[in-house]
């Protein structure tokens, strides 16, 4: 573009092309990847960057965990290796949690692209590695050193030659060396596809680089985001949530400051970092802050450097949202997934019709390992979702992840590759918070292991003490629960031996309600009762709706019940 003008049509065409290219990049990567969460759950990101490392476009993939963490990450690469110091065929990587997306399992590979001998930009992607050594993914570590191998920014390829020393070190440190190294190749293959397609586009459109295009894309996106922010009344909006924490409760406190066309989020007042692996690095805090803001304020504006410019995120050093090296960070999502809640709580004071009530939020990660009946060792990890918060105008979605975009795994898939047995996976009636719009229902799972030996169950669960909150008069969703078949209640972030013949029940929380339950249309209350989502007792107690034994609304009694409540 350097050297010629780009009009509106051409800008739209080229922009769409960039988005198409990063989707091709992601497709190539997902196909070749070994890691189930990458393939099935889309736990990856892929993007294209200008010479200076500004993110121009990002693939539409499954989870916001990497959104913008990769954007910030690439700047560190550009600083360490300016593009003019690199050659065609070079490629870089790191998994440093403080440079990347917050834990060692996420590896970012960054590849410069050269056109006619000159560096024109970068392709980058972040992928969840199957293993990174250390104590396996979990919240239990006290320092990051225990969590696995940490690779500073360095070359993965030099002029097309793989860094053999690095590969040897990786192989010696991880549990599944073939697959982890295989994924590194897959990550490189994705970037290579992106590069080829970008060069074709430059040829097709007769461009020498993407610098001019970059300016236009970033400025447009910034302006559109500022426009969207300007629709929110100026003010300071505050909220806080309480979480179970590792062994003691945590507070996340958010102050959202809207000033004309910019927005500041300040997490001052949030609990300090802890000596277990649930700490969040700043990059990850930034990602899980900008993501829900985008959902509420500007869902249709593409994700790029420009659309982040109007938003500033601050968290004091040493608080759990800006945790400092060398603290442990493995299960940082257990805190990060909750950031949408104080943000939406604060924004509900300004734009109540564009935010949703608290949901179950943090995914419930279940890891079981041990020895199966045939004597083979197994380890299986899967993610499960509770109810989403109710929405202005609609009930919350049951058993569906938010803000994570990760998908669940079928019971049949779990059972066909491991001795884990899922005896039950069902929605929990009455678990959705009452409201004009009801919270999504949580789900119950009953698990055992078909073995003669005990199996180690690592729990990564939250909201067993503090329920997802209802908004604007909506009631809270039901808390999570965790107990054994003999009734023993378990701590939500512990590890213990599940005995042969024993089963464990997980009750994942329901979402909070939205608006007063006494405003809910009695017909919808009746429908919930008929469909066995709500008990007749709860209809009466929580909604003030009387339902007869013949499943009809008792209009008169309902009026009396609701009248009483109003008084």
């Amino acid at each position, binding site marked *: 573009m350097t050297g010629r003008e780009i*009009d509106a049509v051409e800008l739209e065409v080229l922009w769409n092309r960039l988005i198409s290219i990063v989707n091709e990049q992601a497709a190539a990567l997902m*196909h070749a990847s070994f890691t189930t969460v990458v393939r099935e759950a889309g736990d990856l990101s892929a993007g294209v960057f200008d010479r200076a490392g500004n993110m121009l476009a990002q693939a539409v993939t499954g989870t916001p965990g990497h959104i913008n963490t990769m954007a910030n990450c690439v700047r560190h690469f550009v600083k360490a290796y300016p593009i003019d110091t690199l050659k065609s065929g070079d490629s870089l990587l790191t998994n440093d949690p403080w440079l990347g997306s917050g834990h060692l399992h996420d590896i970012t590979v960054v590849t410069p692209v050269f056109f006619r001998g000159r560096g024109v930009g970068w392709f980058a992607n972040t992928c969840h590695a199957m293993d990174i050594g250390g104590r396996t993914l979990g919240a239990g570590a006290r320092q990051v050193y225990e969590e696995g191998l940490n690779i500073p920014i360095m070359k993965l390829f030099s002029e097309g030659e793989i860094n053999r020393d690095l590969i040897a070190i990786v192989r010696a440190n991880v549990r599944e060396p*073939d697959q982890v190294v*295989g994924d590194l190749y897959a990550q490189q293959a994705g970037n290579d596809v992106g590069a080829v397609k970008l060069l074709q586009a430059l040829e097709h459109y007769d461009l020498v680089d993407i610098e001019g295009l970059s300016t236009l894309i970033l400025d447009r996106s910034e302006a559109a985001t500022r426009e969207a922010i300007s629709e929110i009344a100026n003010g300071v909006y505050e909220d806080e949530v309480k979480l179970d924490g590792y062994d003691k409760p945590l507070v996340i406190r958010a102050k959202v400051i809207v000033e004309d066309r910019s927005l500041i989020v300040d997490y001052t007042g949030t609990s300090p970092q802890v000596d277990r692996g649930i700490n969040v690095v700043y990059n990850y805090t930034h990602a899980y802050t900008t993501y829900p803001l985008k959902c509420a304020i500007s*869902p249709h504006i593409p994700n790029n450097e420009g659309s982040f410019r109007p938003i500033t995120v601050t968290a004091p050093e040493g608080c759990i949202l800006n945790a400092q090296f060398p603290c442990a960070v493995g299960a940082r999502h257990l805190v990060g997934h909750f950031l949408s809640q104080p943000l939406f709580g604060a924004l509900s004071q300004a734009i109540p019709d564009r935010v949703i009530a608290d949901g179950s939020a943090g995914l419930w990660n279940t890891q079981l390992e041990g020895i199966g009946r045939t004597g083979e060792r197994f380890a299986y990890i899967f993610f499960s979702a509770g109810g989403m918060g109710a929405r202005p105008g609609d009930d919350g979605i049951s058993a569906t992840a938010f803000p994570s975009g990760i998908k669940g795994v079928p019971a049949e898939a779990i059972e066909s590759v491991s001795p884990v047995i899922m*005896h039950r*996976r069902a929605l929990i009636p009455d678990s959705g918070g009452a409201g004009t719009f009801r919270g999504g229902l949580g789900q119950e799972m009953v698990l055992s292991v078909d073995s003669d030996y005990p199996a180690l169950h690592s729990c990564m669960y939250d909201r067993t003490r503090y329920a997802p909150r209802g908004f604007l008069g909506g009631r809270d969703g039901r808390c999570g629960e965790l107990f054994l078949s003999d009734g023993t209640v378990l701590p939500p972030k512990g590890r213990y031996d599940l005995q042969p013949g024993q089963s464990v029940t997980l009750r994942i929380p329901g979402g909070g309600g939205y608006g007063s339950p006494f405003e809910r249309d009695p017909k919808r209350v009746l429908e919930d009762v008929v469909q066995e989502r709500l008990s007749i007792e709860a209809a009466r107690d929580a909604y003030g709706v009387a339902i007869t034994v013949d499943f009809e609304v008792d209009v008169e009694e309902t009026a009396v019940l609701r009248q009483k409540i109003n008084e």
Partner: protein
Amino acid sequence: MSEEAYTLAIDIGGTFTDVVLRDHASGILSVAKVLTQSPDPSVSVLKGVKEVLNGVSPGAIVRAVHGTTLVTNALIERRGAKTGLIATAGFRDALEIGREGRYDIYDLFLKLPEPLVERRLRVEVRERLYARGEVMTPLNEDDVVKACEVLREGGVDAVAIAFLHAYVNPDHERRAEEIVRSLMPDVGISVSHRVAAELREFERTSTTVANAYVQPMVEKYLARLEDGLKVLGILAPLHIMLSNGGSCSVQTAVRFPVRLVESGPCGGALAAAHYGNRSGYRQILAFDMGGTTAKAILSENGSFPITTESEVARVYRFKRGSGLPLLVPVLDMIEIGAGGGSIAHASELGLPTVGPQSAGADPGPACYARGGQLPTVTDADLLLGYLNAGYFLGGQMELSVDCAADAVDEFARFTGLDRVRAAQGIHDLVNENMANAARVHAAERGIDLNGYALVATGGAGPVHACGVAMRLGIDRVIVPPAAGVGSAFGLMLAPIAFDYVRSLVSRIAALDREVVNKLYGEMEDEGRALVREAGIDDSEIRVVRTADMRYVGQGHEISVPVPLGKLTESSDGTLQAAFDASYKKLYGRLCEGVPVEAIHWRVTVSGPEPEICDVASVGDAGGQGVEGQREVLFSEGKYGTAVYRRDKLGKGAVLQGPAIVEEVESTTVLPPGWVLHVDDTGNLILIREDA
């Protein structure tokens, strides 16, 4: 051929039903187009058949093939039977919990499709199998009896049965089916191990429920249609188009109606590949662009990629994941919200954007002068000179240049462009959108489009074909003759073919070959019986085996060919080699030392490909005469451009771009730098010279 012989094809679309009769001796097609009547389209079919027969003896028809959107529409419009589900205790919510994900990560207000069975009609019974098929808890027959009571009281007309791991061991499902049949003799029953014997309880249950939901309606409709054809004297076997590009007997269609679900566009795809292959092109990107949407599918050597992860009745038509999932083999096709009626507007970023909203047929593009005010792709195409205002649909409809100009001016104003640039922008943007979708589609399947030829059909297809091709690096475009009935013609090309699948997760090195041999044996026996039922002789039956395999630890399987016959010890090496070859083709390199596992075992049993020789096409006569001349704007600039009528171009005619070729159904745009010739089959072959 001494005796008269004809094939009849009936294609029901949303607006029109096309009936085509093909005379085997001459290859001549007779066509009738009648309005589709709802709710009982068999009425319009019979009307069209009468019309097309026109003196031909009904007894001379040797095969009738039928394609219908009935099943798809019933699921979209929720017009199926009231359906109940009997599920394993603890799992009735599999249908509602789904995969716990959202199909759009930014939309807080997204809607998920309602399950086809309401929660109160999902009844649980005690029974449980292990993943390998052994019994953990025997079927509690009293529970099944009680379930029937609940469902009868609930007034259901159809029952689906889906138990965990029934794809490995169907005993419990079979026994439950017997009980339901004896207690509820009047309801249709669909059982998961027969409808979709694949691992993944949500998707399998969803498929089984959809099958049950549409079955009563399909059964009634096909019975009426068969009777009607018999009354007309047509006794030839009636075959029904399936979504895998094959066809089946009426009995099979009634048992597995969900297999008809995406069969609508299959005929068009088969026809496009056929036309391309006839001109000697083996790698085809079939591209169909109509009024509202564009569709694209890749074909190599006459076969199509098949996906078994399809969905139907999406909440948002172009949003992947927003529909009901179905484990049904379907042609792997993409649909894009880009057509002649696609509306240009300004995005939230203030940039010009086209689609997916469409002006449809009513009011239609502004140039139809039927009250449409918004600028569409057709309006832009008219202003750029691609379309002839006086020869749209062969002159049946006069287009208004003034109305198009007014609409585009309005759009130009708020996007800060002049009229010409705005029109060019709309044309370019829609081309870019379609090319991007095709490019990502190819990338997701590990396919490089280099060397492919684009076959353009649909009213707007040949107008945009070269623009799309250039963006994809494709330099061959084929425009087949008489694209208007391509879809119905394509039905005649569908062989009898049915797919089977069984799941068995196992490493290749530790394969229980006995079990796999048994699975293949069962599937093939079932398939042969079914193909025979459609009137195919045993000697003509073909069997193709594949397995879905991956490296242990990967989440994505690839399709690998499996040899016929019994698997023996030496087969392990064959399977590994076949996997290596397929993997290498897709990803370029192997992962040495990582074990390989198979997940699903598949069989396609089919009859012979119908022999369709040359369709009567163009004569040698006819000139090269220029019909007219007009100013046309290409991206290279404005050209005085010669305009031709297709029906006057004979075989061997050669045109140098820029040129326009008009016919009743469409207009072919040949940009500068391209050359066109008419080949022996009547196809227009467009070749980029400056590539």
